[in-house]
């Protein structure tokens, strides 16, 4: 049974999606809940397995590479699968409440989201380039229609832009994969390591194409254009999943490939610094944009653009601390961002709008939603006690040890800018309403437990990650050779 876990983690969620497609959500969402269970169980068991025995491998159908497909779960995969399970599980619960009044959207959500879940797991388990490509496509193709569930004209535009840019990214990546295959005749990452001898310019080109493709999918500045509207316009649970997990998947693949043998030519300092430069640009540009947005969900979306930038700072630093810092940042950001989007979604639902200027004085009525926003915000700002703080600590230490002190300054500046946009929202909540204003606050809609608890639990997890560094980093394990 245990050797089948990687397979089950991929196919059980998809099976659930098919189930809902055929039977609908079921009475009282029975099939939706069953789907969540089907998805959670193998994921968590697999994580436990990796924690207990180390890397788990599975050859699909018993065929070893290069003929067959290899699934592999190491510490990094396990951590990402765990993140997906925790965020996915709680956002699923929120979705049950969120889509309660929209049966049609609910059904589409419960078909697409399990498909996305299975695809994400598959991506994290992929051990060869082509498989990674297929799963990355699956992730994108499941994610885009989820944006459409908002049902507005803007959502259609946003989804279309997402689709076009994502396809562009895929094309670049696939071209790179084709070049590698033509060059060495295998796509398995381990086998490739053995066959590579003397990298020529073709391999350089292939690597550059693949990196660029992934940057587009990860919405790294200047390829971020599709993200704010898609993430800001989607329904709250979808925004949470996209920002917390989907863009993270592309970054994951980038880190995975970078630490493998194929990208050796790119590990030259110039390439590493170029990527870090993009990261710096993302941090500064995304934060400044977040400060300027008028709508709450767009603030949170631009914050994602900024936060993804931190993950690219790894390349010139390398070393164990930076590696741990970047991965921990990814995990902490995933949890905190999901909490932020659920809180923003709840505020939008309760007030009927998400214009920040018009939120004046709503803090006392929407105390729980704003409270969760604040808790998750602590992690985004990288202030203690939170997961974001531990990540910042590791990254700072990594940058100082690598002698890249100016990256440390960027990291600190990014934290202060984040404080700017988080507190801008909280300021609106604390300010008393203008007594001369003609309009009083509108009636506030009530949110049920299903929409309140996931937000609260995610926000508390974001804080709790500030105390969980030791076990999670033990699970992650050592830095892969080329990044050490």
């Amino acid at each position, binding site marked *: 049974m245990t050797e089948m876990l990687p397979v089950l983690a991929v196919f059980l969620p998809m099976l659930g999606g098919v189930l809902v497609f055929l039977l609908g959500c079921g009475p009282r969402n029975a099939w939706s809940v069953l789907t969540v269970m089907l998805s959670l169980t193998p994921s968590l068991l697999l994580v436990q397995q990796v924690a207990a025995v180390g890397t788990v491998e599975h050859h699909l159908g018993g065929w070893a590479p290069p003929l067959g497909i290899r699934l592999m779960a190491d510490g990094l995969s396990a951590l990402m699968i765990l993140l997906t399970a925790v965020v996915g599980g709680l956002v699923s619960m929120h979705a049950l409440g969120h889509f309660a009044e929209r049966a049609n959207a609910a059904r589409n959500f419960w078909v697409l989201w399990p498909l996305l879940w299975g695809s994400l797991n598959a991506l994290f388990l992929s051990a060869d380039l082509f498989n990674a490509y297929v799963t990355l496509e699956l992730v994108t193709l499941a994610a885009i229609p989820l944006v459409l569930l908002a049902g507005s004209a803007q959502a259609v535009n946003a989804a279309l832009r997402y689709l076009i840019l994502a396809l562009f990214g895929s094309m670049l990546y696939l071209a790179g994969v084709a070049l590698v295959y033509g060059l060495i005749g295998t796509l398995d990452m381990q086998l490739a390591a053995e066959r590579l001898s003397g990298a020529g310019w073709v391999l350089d080109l292939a690597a550059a194409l693949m990196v660029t493709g992934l940057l587009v999918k990860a919405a790294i500045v200047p390829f971020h254009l599709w993200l704010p509207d898609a993430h800001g316009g989607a329904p709250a649970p979808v925004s949470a999943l996209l920002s917390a997990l989907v863009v993270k998947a592309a970054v994951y693949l980038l880190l995975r490939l970078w630490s493998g043998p194929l990208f050796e030519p790119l590990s030259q300092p110039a390439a590493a610094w170029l990527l870090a430069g993009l990261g710096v640009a993302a941090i500064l540009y995304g934060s400044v944009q977040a400060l300027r947005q008028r709508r709450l969900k767009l603030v949170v979306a631009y914050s994602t653009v900024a936060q993804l930038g931190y993950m690219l700072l790894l390349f010139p630093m390398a070393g164990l601390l930076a590696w*741990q810092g970047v991965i921990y940042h990814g995990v902490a950001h995933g949890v905190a961002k999901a909490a932020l989007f659920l809180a923003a979604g709840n505020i939008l639902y309760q007030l009927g709008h998400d214009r920040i200027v018009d939120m004046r*004085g709503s803090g*006392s009525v929407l*105390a729980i939603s704003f*409270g969760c926003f604040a808790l998750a915000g*602590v992690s985004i700002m990288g*202030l*203690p*006690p939170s997961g974001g*703080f*531990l990540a*910042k*600590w*590791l990254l*700072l*230490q990594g940058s*100082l*040890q690598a002698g890249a002190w100016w990256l*440390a300054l960027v990291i*600190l500046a990014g*934290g*202060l800018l984040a*404080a700017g946009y988080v*507190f801008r929202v909280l*300021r609106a909540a*604390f*300010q*008393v309403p203008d007594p001369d204003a003609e309009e009083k606050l509108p009636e506030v809609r009530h949110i049920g437990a299903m929409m309140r608890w996931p937000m609260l639990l995610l926000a508390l997890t974001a804080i709790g990650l*500030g*105390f969980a*560094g*030791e076990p999670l*980093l*033990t699970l992650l394990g050592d830095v892969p050779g080329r990044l050490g």
Partner: protein
Amino acid sequence: MIYQALPLWTLMTSLVAALVVFAAGESRHRLRITVNLAAAVFKLVLVGVMLLGVLRGDLFLVSFTILPGLDLVFHADALTLLFTTLSAVLWLVTTVYAVSYLEQRPNRARFFGFFSLCVAATMGIATAGNLFTFFVFYELLTLATWPLVVHNGWPKAMAVGRLYLRYTLGGGAVLLLGIVALNALGVPGDFLAGGSLDGLEKTHPGLVYGIFLLLLLGLGVKAAVVPLHVWLPNAMVAPAPVSALLHAVAVVKAGAFGIVRVVYDVYGLEVMAELHLGSLLAVVASITIIYGSLKAIAQTDIKRRLAYSTVSQVSYIALGVGLGSPYATIGGLVHLVHQGLMKITLFFCAGNFAETHGVHKISELNGIGRRMPWTTAMFTLGAFGMMGAPPMAGFISKWYLGMGALQAEAYWVIPVLLASTALNAIYFLPLLYRAWFGRPAAEHEPAGMAEARPGLLVPTLCTGLAALGAGVLAGMPLSPLSWVTFIVGQEYGG
């Protein structure tokens, strides 16, 4: 194990109180007040037990591994107890005051929740066993005080809140850089008597010097060292109990306490002297003392004058620490407690004036002594203490600082102390004169005595008399002075 982890329990007491208050919601006033007072009393008991334990030489230490090679450490040494005792006592008093002050005002659950969280952060700062732990609670304090500063939600308060965050979060970032830099050089920053640099000053003297500047810059923001003090007078927009708590206990003391920890327990006096960091600190502190007093004279608002007085007085602590001689250390450390007692009294009084008669400006104080004799008497005690008049607590601090300056052969400090006393007299005496002897303007004709309500007056009396007692009874065992002498005995190895 449970006994050894007492530092953690004192922290948890306030933290749990905060969570209960948040969860109970706005309408359950009685539950909230009960929880607040019960937690404050319980914490006082815990601190008392810990105090006796430290005196006996018991070891209090508990730690959790947060990251590989990085621990969250809580401990209690004599210095810890100096700060925790002060906080625990003043928390109880301020809670009583705040309950009465905020009667009938909105958002009380939020206020008391963050209020307790502030105290939890202060406890964390006091019991932190290394720089990492200290920083965690130092930043938590920023986060927990912001909602209190902007509590009333007026546009002015929101603008001040923004200023407050710019200074404190900016300072926090600089402090973090300094702490991480030490860690990257292999010094975990444990708080050990005598310092924990482990010879780093020999191998990297330049870096050690630079890192000290970073740490001082970061801590100096909260300690309101000139020119990083700007946030403090502006923060006066907050409700009176917040001003009292922020100025007497939490924020400024967190900064000052951090400086004490860095100087004695991370760098150590030898390194401080070797790199001439002590004299640097003393000079910066002296400038702040004089500048704060000069600015105080120019203020017309009572709370703002008190705030500038705080700027000036808190730097006595840094001055004593910077001089580094045993007597100066006693003077500086004992001022941590003495200034707390005196300044909280003054702010309570200012709150009483404002709350009872709407008096905010110094010019409106005329004749208030006849209407509010008790409050004015306590204000007088506090003011004389600030000037350093015997037998008030402030005199003890100044006496030891002066002796310490002579001991350290830093004779230039004596004129600074004298000037500070003179300036304090200049900005406090006219105020007292108005209050007791001034003739009220016609439209404010006094109609007999009208004291503050008991909930406001009793805490004021307690702290005012404590400030007097700390001076008169300074020779008694367990007085702030005796305790500080005990600490200094340990730091200087008997």
